[in-house]
């Protein structure tokens, strides 16, 4: 086609008559927040454009004579008197498959130098969570590849499970393992990792790990760094939720990690104080609960009529000195469907992941577990709780009856079996075999220092000699009695090599 014709086609319907725009003027600039006079018809959460500064803003406060907005970028070129234009658009981000494997900022702009993001659709950042009718109960499991979580604190698709603990106890590692493990899953969910106020070096390491493990191809990383404006840190989790919602609404599954929401609350506190909103407890604004509840309510398992997609949320909260009774931790605990609590005492005892089974819970429970896991892990939590109680008691006495001694020895080995290094998530069929071994064979007969070796050997032998059992667990999600007996036979054989 002739180039002139092409231009003509492209320019068809273009109105070149003069147009009017609603404008205002900046009256005050303060730490990434501006006050604007004018803009009479502006709406809340509308984007505004700062003329000549090449930066956008987001309207958050509508006052009688002024408008408060956060600057989405550098405030270097914004000064008193700068003209601000309405865009008549709400804040939206690009969504879709084009974002997979990419690292973006909360505005959806690429940060990885891999060129423009090809997204056909844009969705608004602030959306209401699905209604009660549009949801269904959480029943499909989302395996993290961490034995302790999948057996004792199971997570379902569409669930919101909080990861909470002090700094440096492995909160991000759990989230990262959960993302990496999805490559082993049958209906693999798309993953979104939201680095909210995390250090650049840490995020760089995390992306390198995801790339090395081959998890980046189904993952999007949304980054807001500590040196970005507070508005970026505040908006990053919403951007992550919107990207995940696209998959949820298109009959697919998605997993979103918000790492971490404490920093988002800090950013919102900063913005609110500059906007002169009344401070409440710990100087947080009154709507800090709403900030997190409206974000986490967007995670859901959709009904079959709505396509059956899901968005699972793993929010992370950092505590100070293990205090889970702080303002933000209690808020998020009450919003989510359970929490994984990481304990510094356990961490010091080399228990990794340092999950405190007593304070961790999944309110969805075994309904989000596959049959095989449910069968083998049924009594595990009770047995471990009993062991912990007896272990504490045994510290005060030397005389123990043989049954108590056996329970303690067994518990110690079980605890050892549940230990797992970072970045080594296990496929679910292997997890089932390990937990079955711990729960159904007399592992107290195996020497304590050989228990990890024993675990590896059992998994290896079942994989080699009985691959059909692994396949059965993987395909049907169940383990027949015949398979159980076969595994017991293998265990018996191996145990002989350990002097049992």
């Amino acid at each position, binding site marked *: 086609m002739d180039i002139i014709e092409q*231009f003509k086609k*492209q*320019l068809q319907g*273009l109105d*070149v008559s*003069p*147009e*009017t*725009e*609603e*404008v*205002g*003027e900046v009256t005050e600039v303060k730490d990434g927040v501006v006050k604007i*006079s*004018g*803009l*009479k018809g502006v709406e809340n959460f509308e984007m505004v454009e700062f003329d000549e500064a090449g930066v956008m803003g987001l309207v958050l406060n509508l006052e009688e*004579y002024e408008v408060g907005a956060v600057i989405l970028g550098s405030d270097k070129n914004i000064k008193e008197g700068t*003209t601000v*234009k309405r865009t008549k658009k709400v804040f939206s981000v690009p969504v879709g498959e084009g974002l997979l494997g990419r690292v973006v900022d909360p505005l959806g702009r690429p940060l990885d130098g891999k060129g423009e993001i090809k997204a056909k659709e844009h969705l608004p950042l602030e959306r209401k969570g699905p209604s009660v009718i549009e949801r269904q109960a959480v029943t499909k499991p989302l395996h993290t590849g961490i034995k302790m979580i999948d057996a004792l604190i199971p997570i379902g698709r569409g669930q919101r499970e909080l990861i909470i603990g002090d700094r440096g106890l492995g909160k991000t590692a759990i989230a990262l393992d959960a993302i990496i493990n999805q490559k082993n899953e049958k209906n693999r969910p798309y993953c979104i990792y939201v680095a909210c106020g995390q250090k650049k070096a840490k995020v760089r390491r995390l992306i390198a790990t995801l790339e090395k493990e081959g998890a980046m191809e189904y993952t999007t990383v949304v980054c807001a760094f500590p040196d970005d404006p507070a508005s970026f840190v505040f908006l990053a989790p919403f951007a992550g939720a919107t990207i995940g919602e696209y998959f949820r609404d298109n009959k697919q599954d998605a997993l979103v990690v918000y790492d971490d929401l404490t920093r988002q609350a800090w950013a919102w506190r900063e913005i609110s104080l500059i906007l002169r909103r009344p401070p409440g407890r710990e100087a947080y604004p009154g709507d800090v609960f709403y900030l997190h509840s409206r974000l986490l309510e967007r995670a859901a398992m959709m009904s079959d009529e709505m396509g059956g997609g899901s968005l699972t949320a793993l929010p992370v909260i950092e505590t100070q000195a293990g205090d889970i009774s702080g303002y933000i931790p209690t808020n998020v605990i009450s919003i989510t469907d359970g929490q994984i609590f990481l304990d510094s005492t356990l961490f010091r005892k080399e228990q990794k992941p340092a999950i405190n089974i007593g304070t961790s819970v999944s309110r969805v429970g075994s309904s989000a577990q596959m049959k095989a896991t449910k069968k083998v892990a049924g009594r595990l939590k009770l047995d471990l709780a009993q062991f912990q109680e007896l272990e504490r008691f045994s510290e005060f006495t030397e005389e123990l009856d043989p049954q108590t001694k056996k329970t303690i020895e067994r518990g110690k080995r079980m605890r050892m079996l549940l230990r797992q290094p970072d970045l080594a998530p296990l496929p679910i069929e292997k997890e089932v075999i390990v937990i079955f071994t711990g729960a159904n064979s007399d592992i107290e007969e195996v020497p304590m220092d050989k228990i990890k070796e024993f675990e590896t050997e059992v998994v290896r032998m079942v994989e080699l000699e009985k691959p059909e059992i692994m396949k059965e667990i993987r395909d049907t999600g169940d383990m027949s009695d015949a398979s159980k007996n076969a595994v017991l036979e293998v265990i018996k054989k191996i145990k002989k090599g350990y002097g049992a």
Partner: protein
Amino acid sequence: MKPEKEVSSWARALYLAIEENPGKSKDIFANLKESLGKKEFLLSSILKKVERICMKEKRAELSLPYDISEKEKKEIKDKIKEVVKGIEKVDDVLDESLLAGFRLKTKDVLVKASLKDVLTKLKNKIYGYN
């Protein structure tokens, strides 16, 4: 309330009251003085602020791509005052980047009628920018 916030609020109220009742400015000032009571010392700041608000509200800025004669300018400015309500002062600015046409900016509205704006529209349409 902080003094600057208080001055702002009083100034805005005074401006609106005078705008709505232009014949009663004497009564309005008397009322204001009475209402301020012990804070009468704020009066001068309030009046300065009102002056600034008037300047902003009643001022328009006309951007032109080239210089025109004073007579032509006067004709255009008179026309603007006639068409746009409440405008008392029109400042003219030379902006060669407009190429042709003009831009008129009041406190709340920007009228874009320059060749630069038309070309920007064309560019955005071709690139598919929204």
